[in-house]
């Protein structure tokens, strides 16, 4: 029964853009978090290339970087959505392991190293479903039980880790189908590693979903003002559950790729993935207070620590400076966000 009040009409009273103001596009570009991250990335690359001409940033370096970063990139996709809702997901690295374990367990009892493509698909889908279901349950804890995200996913982290050890008895499963390892794990398509293809395309897909669809819009709205979202008729609880399920699903996909790449479940190999991922998302301009963040920013944010590490090694600087520099960049990113918020509140 809503009246179409918004019918087009000759807007004789169009607001005039102030002549001295910056063009909105310029202003928005300067205000966007990812602009600064991108600038930082370029400067870093320039410095390292200057320090070691010809050595840094060969295609080989880039693709090696991208390959080892693929699981982080995938987890960062889900984490970006979660952080934009003003939440946090600490469980990602442990859900990655759990999903790898579930798939690995299925492969071990269904043909092991010689398992066929059909089995591989079933195992992978089981892993993905495990991730989505696990994430979804954490979402229920956050949305319905009102457990703060930090605690809900800390709880999930413990449960995922415990389950992984219980299922495997503490021993890594190393009978991974050869076909999986040689294709997804280490193989390429048209000269590009599958890990890169899968992680980049997934990033692109969810970047578009975040920027262009209702799902993305509601994610921003809930992070920005949950009460307003609720009064606008958005089912906030259901959306939060979906967002945490997405984060679990991405960790699951990362788990399958991890299993394929290392040909083992790497149970104890991901204790700090969550912090790496959160660092990347925050460096990429997402606000821990919610409502802000982009997939492009996250994409840059994931590669900054990696490029720092590679660059430092190639430049002959002790690579452990990487951690110090990453820490400083993280601090700077959050400080910038604080300044932005304070300026806005003054407006």
């Amino acid at each position, binding site marked *: 029964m809503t009246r179409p009040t918004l019918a087009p009409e000759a807007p004789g009273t169009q607001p005039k853009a102030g002549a001295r103001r910056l063009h909105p596009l310029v202003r928005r570009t300067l205000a966007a978090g990812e602009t600064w991250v991108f600038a930082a990335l370029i400067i870093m690359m320039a410095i390292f290339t200057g320090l070691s001409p010809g050595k840094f940033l060969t295609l080989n370096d880039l693709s090696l970087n991208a390959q080892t970063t693929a699981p982080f990139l995938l987890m960062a996709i889900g984490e970006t959505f979660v952080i934009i809702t003003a939440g946090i997901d600490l469980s990602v690295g442990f859900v990655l392991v759990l999903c790898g374990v579930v798939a690995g367990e299925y492969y071990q009892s269904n043909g092991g190293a010689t398992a066929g493509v059909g089995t591989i698909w079933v195992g992978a889908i089981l892993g993905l479903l495990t991730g989505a279901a696990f994430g979804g349950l954490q979402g229920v804890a956050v949305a319905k039980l009102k457990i703060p995200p930090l605690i809900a996913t800390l709880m999930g982290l413990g449960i995922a880790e415990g389950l992984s050890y219980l299922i495997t008895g503490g021993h890594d499963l190393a009978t991974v189908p050869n076909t999986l390892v040689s294709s997804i794990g280490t193989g390429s398509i048209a000269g590009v590693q599958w890990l890169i293809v899968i992680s980049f395309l997934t990033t692109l897909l969810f970047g578009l979903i975040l920027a262009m669809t209702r799902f993305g819009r509601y994610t921003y*709205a809930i992070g920005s003002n949950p009460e*307003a979202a609720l009064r606008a008729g958005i089912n906030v609880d259901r959306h939060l559950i979906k967002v945490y399920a997405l984060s679990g699903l991405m960790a699951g996909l990362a788990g399958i790729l991890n299993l394929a790449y290392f040909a083992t479940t790497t149970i104890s190999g991901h204790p700090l993935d969550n912090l790496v991922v959160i660092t990347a998302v925050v460096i990429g301009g997402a606000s821990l207070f919610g409502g802000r963040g982009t997939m492009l920013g996250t994409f840059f944010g994931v590669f900054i620590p990696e490029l720092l590490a590679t660059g430092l090694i190639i430049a002959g600087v002790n690579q452990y400076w990487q951690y110090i520099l990453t820490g400083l960049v993280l601090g700077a990113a959050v400080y910038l966000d604080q300044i932005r918020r304070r300026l806005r509140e003054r407006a």
Partner: protein
Amino acid sequence: MTEPLLEAREVVKRYGQVQALDGANFTAYPGEVVALIGDNGAGKSTLVKTLSGVIRPDAGQILVEGSPVSFSSPLDARKYGIETVYQDLALAPDLDAAANLHLGREIYRWFKPLHVLDKAEMRRRAVTAFADLGIHLPDVTAPVGTLSGGQRQSVAVARAVAYASRIIFMDEPTAALGVVQRERVLENIRRVKDRGITVVLISHNMPEVLAVSDRVEVLRMGRRVARFTTSETTVDQLVSAMTGALTIEEP
């Protein structure tokens, strides 16, 4: 007089021991600005929440154009063309004016089940909606958090006006504003009225009520105690009714 557009009859709402509404009546007629006033705790907010679907009354009737209705959520009330401008405005500060205007009512393009937002269309409609109300926003693509208090208020009002076909509730719309911005809000109320939409103004500010309303209904202790035609009323009369020195309706 014409048939009431929205009517509350003997509405009761209890919160534990507190009797927020004790058989309250309320009437709004088509195309008028009616002010709902009362002291703190008189039941204004509870009554508005009841009429806009935020809370359900324990007893009593709500009628829209004479027929009884039951709202289980603000969405139900919206279906009857009833919108609310909340005191806190209920805007998402990180989203721009166009996104806030369409929040929960997005417009899509391409294959509809994909829910791809038609941002250009939403922006275009937003510009039109603001222009219709004579609101000038320097940039509809700026996050509303960067706008001034008055501009934010305008965005919230424009949103309500864009979808309200019958009634807009405005809960203390000027409480947090400066003098100039306050004047703009009152101007907005007049414009909304000019479009034939009924405005229910909840306010503490008596001069403001007298300046903008056609009628005034007074609540005290969960009941309506008086009704005035604004042009025949003084601040003293309103205050007497609010404080209990004057009761025109049977208690």
